[in-house]
Every structure is written in C-alpha cells, then in structure tokens.
C-alpha cells in the first residue's frame, strides 16, 4: 500500500491545468506541420502557419494558447493499492483546478447553475472521471475543453443494420454541421458501442489518444483512415474558411453493446487540442 497526501494531488492537478493551456502537445504541433505542407487553400495555409506561430508564442511567453481555457475535464486512474490521506480525494481535485486556474491566469468559464448562469469565479467544478486500476500510482490527465468545439459534439442511436456506413454518415454530418464553428483543424473523437452514457465517454477518451496512433483492431483502424480522408474532402478547412485540412486525426474507441443498439458519439476537439498527464 502506498500513501498519497491530498496536498500532492492539489499541486499536481494545479500544475497540469496551466501546463495544458500554455504548451500544446508535440503530436498536435506535428499535425499542424503536416497539414501546413499539404493544405491546398492559401487562406488555410496562412491560418495553419499562424496557429504554429501562436503555439510558439504561447510556449515562449508561458501564456494560454487559446483564451478559452475551457471547463476542466480530469481523468483519474487510481491504483487500488493507494491510500489517500489528509482530506477528501474529490475535493482535492477541485481544489487543484481552482488553484491552477487562479495561478495560471486562466479564464474562468464555468457557471454554477446551467439555467441561472452565474459564473463560479474559479472555474470549478471540474468534470472528473475516476477509474480504479491495478497498482499503487495515480495517473491524472487534464483536458481543458473549450466551448466552441464541445458544443458541436453529438450522439445518436443508429439501427444495428446501418453498420459502418451509418457510422460514417453520422460522423460526417456532425462535422459538416459544426463547420468553422468548432475551430478546425479538429481531432474527431468517435465512440461506438456501449450504452447511452458509455458511448460519449468513449468519444471523450478517444481524443486523448496520440495523433498518429491507430486503433489496434484492423477494421476500426481502416474506418479511422477512411473517415479522415472523407472529412478532409468536405472542403471545410482551417477555421471553416475552405481547405483540405479539416481534421488532424479521427481516433475511434469501441465497446460491446446490446443486440438492439448501435450508439455512436462524436466529440469534437478543436485545434487547441490540449491534454497533459502526470503520474503520482
């Protein structure tokens, strides 16, 4: 058994919040560079160059890459041999987010009640996904999720008979409806299978996968390739101003499902594809 104090959790989560917002991951930057080379539209090419420049300036000046520093989504994998002391585990994650958004000068974009809509002032609460796993470590991943792309995400129950083609149609339709509103080039996280709640969680987890890595199942990897090509043939392009780089990657995650069901979810991740992981 390993003992972890909540102060360590607060510190780790706080740091992850601002680090994620300041420093765009290398796989995303590599995606921008590839897209910049192949982009056919002059406007699109200029935008991709500006995004690379923006990322560099953010890194050098330790500033948020995008002003919408999102609602924090925190994924936690807790080893079953960890014992937490000093306070409440979930509270410590919220305290970490509060500290990180304050110390990092990140924007506070959360309203406490979805209908009354008063800003909570400290960007809490975060959305926390916790999983118990083997081992004696805790792994934290912070995904600051901006509103522009999250708002364009969608979920649908297809008929099982609609199969691959049905999935493709739904993903393409979602991307076309999102157009420039979701700040392309995007990463298109797709969930297939599971239940109503599980499928959206799969789509969300999918965007955490490194750009360039395909699903281990060959038929899903093939679907990822075909969807990427078709999405880049929509013409939407960077910022929806036309072009051949609409998506950087289409990661798909799947799960078993009921004999009557074929749920699909699409979680759109904008070009501010921020994610940062740390292990305690």
């Amino acid at each position: 058994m390993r003992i972890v104090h909540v102060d360590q959790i607060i510190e780790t989560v706080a740091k992850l919040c601002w680090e994620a917002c300041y420093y765009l991951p290398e796989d995303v930057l590599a995606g921008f560079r590839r897209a910049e080379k192949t982009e056919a539209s002059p406007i699109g090419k200029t935008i991709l160059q500006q995004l690379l420049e923006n990322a560099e300036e953010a890194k050098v000046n330790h500033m948020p890459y995008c002003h919408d520093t999102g609602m924090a989504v925190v994924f936690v994998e807790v080893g079953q041999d960890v014992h937490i002391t000093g306070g409440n585990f979930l509270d410590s994650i919220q305290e970490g987010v509060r500290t990180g958004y304050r110390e990092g000068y990140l924007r506070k974009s959360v309203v406490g009640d979805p209908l009354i809509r008063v800003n909570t002032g400290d960007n809490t609460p975060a959305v926390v996904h916790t999983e118990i796993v083997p081992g004696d470590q805790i792994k934290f991943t912070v995904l600051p999720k901006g509103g522009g792309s999250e708002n364009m995400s969608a979920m649908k129950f297809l008929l099982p008979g609609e199969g691959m083609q049905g999935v493709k149609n739904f993903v393409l339709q979602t991307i076309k409806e999102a157009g420039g509103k979701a700040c392309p080039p995007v990463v298109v996280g797709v969930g297939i299978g599971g239940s109503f709640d599980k499928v959206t969680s799969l789509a969300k987890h999918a965007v955490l996968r490194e750009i360039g890595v395909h699903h281990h199942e060959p038929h899903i990897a093939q679907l990822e390739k075909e969807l990427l090509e078709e999405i880049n043939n929509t013409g939407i392009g960077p910022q929806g101003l036309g072009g051949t780089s609409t998506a950087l990657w289409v990661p798909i995650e799947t799960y078993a499902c009921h004999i009557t069901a074929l749920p699909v979810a699409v979680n759109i991740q904008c070009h501010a594809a921020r994610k940062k992981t740390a292990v305690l």
Partner: protein
Amino acid sequence: MAEYRLKTPLTDEDIQMLQIGDQVLLTGTIYMARDAAHKRMVDLLESGQSLPVNLRGEVIFYAGPCPPKPGQIIGPVAPTTAYRMDPYAPAMYEYGVKGTIGKGPRREMVKEACKQYGAISFAAVGGLSTILSRRVTDVEVVAYEDLGPEAIRRLEVEDFPLLVAYDAHGQDLYEQEIAKYENYNKNANKGVGI
C-alpha cells in the same frame, strides 16, 4: 482579395469598398461584447432605451479574454463563435453597428442584415489568442462589469488582422471557399483538379 490598413470608425466608403476575402489590418477603437452583454443590449433596444455605451458606427468584437498577468495589458484573447450572436446581430446592425468580429459561419439573417444596413461581419482566427492579444494596446471595462469576462470592454488595437467574411453586398466567404475545396483531393487524384 485585397489587403487594406483601415482605421476605426469605418466610413461608409470603407464598407462599400470591402469584398469578402479582403484582408484588413484594423487600427483604432473597437468594443468587446459577447453573449450576456448582447442579451442585455438587445433587451434595451427592444424597449426603446439607450445602450450603456454608444456603439453607433462602431465595431464589436465577440470575445472574452483571459485575466492579464501582472504587466500585461490584456490576457490572451481571440473571437468566440459568431453564430451564437446571430439572433442579436440584425438588431445591433439596425441600431448602427458597422462591423462585428467573430469566428465561424453565420446564418442567413446576418448576411442579409449586413446588406440591408451596410455593415461587415469580419472573421478573425479562433484560438489565435496569444498573437491577437499583442495587437491590443489598451483596454478598459466600460459597462456590465458584473459579467466578468463577458463585460463590455473598449479596446485600442493596432493592425488587428481580420478577413471580410460577409460584406455589404450579400457575399459569403465561407460558402465560396468551402465549395472550392470540396472533394479537392479526390478530384486531384483523378486528375480533375480545379
């Protein structure tokens, strides 16, 4: 697709001259307002009251910045999704706003309002926040301070990079450009090209 350096307030001649795809480097005063401020302003206009700030002839930037770090004029800032302001935009253009700055495509109602009232809907790059914040030379909250990042701010900008997305002639840059690149790679592979 011409390039211009323009100063605010935009004149009617400026507006008639601008065509979709034109690049504009804008210098001068602009006003930042987004969802909550628009709701309040349009409620005032509908009940025949005056706005807390005179925005006739002005340009509105749909955005909400990060807090500034010590020594910074403004925190990172870039446009928010324009279509959320679509329900308010025609009323604001009718009132006398000459330009808006946002990201992403807008609805027919905005295209028509730009034509009817002689105004522009500009696009700036969403998420280009570090770069854009450095083009802001001054900022002051002028109304609705209680709205935090959504308060109305007056900004002084220098060479703020914009694209004309919807012009006063009823043209739509998004529609035009997307049509050019639809199936571009497919056609190119077949030797069709465009």
